[in-house]
């Protein structure tokens, strides 16, 4: 048996549809092995999503995420009277202040580490953030 590219794709689809975890095909002594993952390995259903690691590139959305290095409260401006540090569409350079995360009455300025464009602001002003929460998406043009 020889597999071609289309057959391989179909195999992968079948694997998914049949809820298998493993297909083994060997050529000469012709060994074929298909395995299904045992059902019960899964955990209680009150799941929450794991926090994203800082600055993760995701295949489906372009760009880099800036995540919170602290637990605290997210502020887009230095004070209620000031303008926001950045807006969507702004070009930023490394070192540019993006926001403040307040923890224990300390105002921690979060700076950009890369050059790019603010594509999305993911947290509302004044809202609490956890460690690792995504704050901004930055597109590197």
């Amino acid at each position, binding site marked *: 048996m020889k597999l071609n590219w289309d057959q391989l794709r179909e195999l992968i689809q079948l694997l998914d549809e049949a809820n298998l975890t493993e297909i083994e095909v060997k050529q000469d002594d012709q060994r074929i092995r298909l395995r299904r993952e045992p059902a019960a390995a899964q*955990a209680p259903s009150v799941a929450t999503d794991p*926090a994203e690691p800082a600055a993760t590139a995701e295949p489906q959305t372009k760009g880099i995420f800036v995540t919170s290095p602290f637990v605290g409260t997210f502020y887009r401006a230095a004070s209620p009277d000031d303008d926001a540090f950045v807006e969507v569409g702004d070009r930023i350079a490394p070192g540019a202040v993006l926001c403040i995360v307040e923890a224990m009455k300390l105002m921690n300025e979060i700076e950009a580490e890369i050059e790019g464009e603010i594509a999305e602001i993911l947290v509302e002003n004044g809202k609490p953030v*956890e460690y690792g929460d995504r704050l901004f998406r930055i597109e590197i043009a």
Partner: protein
Amino acid sequence: MFEKVLIANRGEIALRVLRSCHERGVRTVAVHSEIDTEALHTRLADEAICIGPDDPRRSYLNIPAIIAAAEITGADAIHPGYGFLAENPEFAETCAQCGLKFIGPTPGQIRQWGDKVKSRALARSLGLPVLEGTELATNMDDAVDKATALGFPVVLKASGGGGGRGMHVIQTEEQLRAVFQAARSEARAAFGNEELYFEKLIERPRHVEFQILGDEHGNIHVLGERDCSIQRRHQKIIEEAPSIALSDELRSDMASTIRRAMKETGYVSAGTLEFLMDETGSLTFLEMNPRIQVEHPVTELVMGIDLVAEQIRIAEGLPIELPAPNLAPRGHAIECRINAEDPDTFAPSPGTITEFHMAGGTGVRVDSGVYGGWRVPPHYDPLVAKLIVHGPTRAHAIAKMRRSLAETIIGGIRTNIPLHRRILEHPAFEEGRISTRFLDEFSP
């Protein structure tokens, strides 16, 4: 009453606190590191906040992150559990400064008992029997003089140590000269405090400890003792209540002495006074742990109380509420600490728990922070479950623990269950001939 309590811990003790909160109608906030996003304490709390990466120094020991988590969730109070920040007076102080009630003793009390040399002096001044020992040894020659005056064999101890850490048994002057400098560097590295002192060595001691509760109204209760003699390298692995080594008279004398002493210090919250018992049956003060202990459930079972619920009540400013004014232990309780470790080499064994079937039935309590499918992380304490039994007599409790261990199945990781089985089957254990050297002497 508190509306919301943040639990600054993980694993079984985080769940233990969560349970008493939920039973009291208090909402809970879990804090967790990234790897603990799917941990049971994270899942079961009303709210969960990720406070940092896996390294405990950047998460569970990260004071600003924990305080910020309490602030953004609007928690009223923080329960520190045991370990991590439970005995950190700065943390307790920071809580107070930020308007958060620390569920535990005052920062002053934590500090008072935290230094082992000072706590010995304090205990002595409070009328507690203290093991013969020395002042701090300032240098090598001073150390030799002090140890010789005390008389070999001695135990060289770090003033900043505790819980069995920073201890060396020294048989001779030569041995002392060989280890003194290294012990000092070790103490400085481990505890940030290089001070060393000596105590008389008790060759085959029992570890006996008394549970106390104090409230802001000046009430102090001594809730009996626990025998925690079965240890491996000073880490307790089996605990029981009551201790068969205490006569009713000694138990009651000790309770009076301790009550008087703790009343004098105005102690608040749960605490444990640890003693060593020598071969003649006399008890000498070892240390005071100003927090809830791992082995508290054996006291709860024989006394019919909820120590964590009392800690919460006390922190709310309420008086201690016991089912009867003079509680006496009812029956006998034993706890086995089930650790994710090789039962022979004691090497840690983190990994995914593929099967998790704990014992059940009458007189069996399980306190655990894991579940089938959970991956035990390598970063923290290897305790995966506490198996605790309660029976009318010690013999019944032993029989119950044997059958409970026999029906407990944890797959995917190695655990010390086989070691527990061997200890529980050992005639010396059955007969109560135990000391902290049990594992060395019997190698069950």
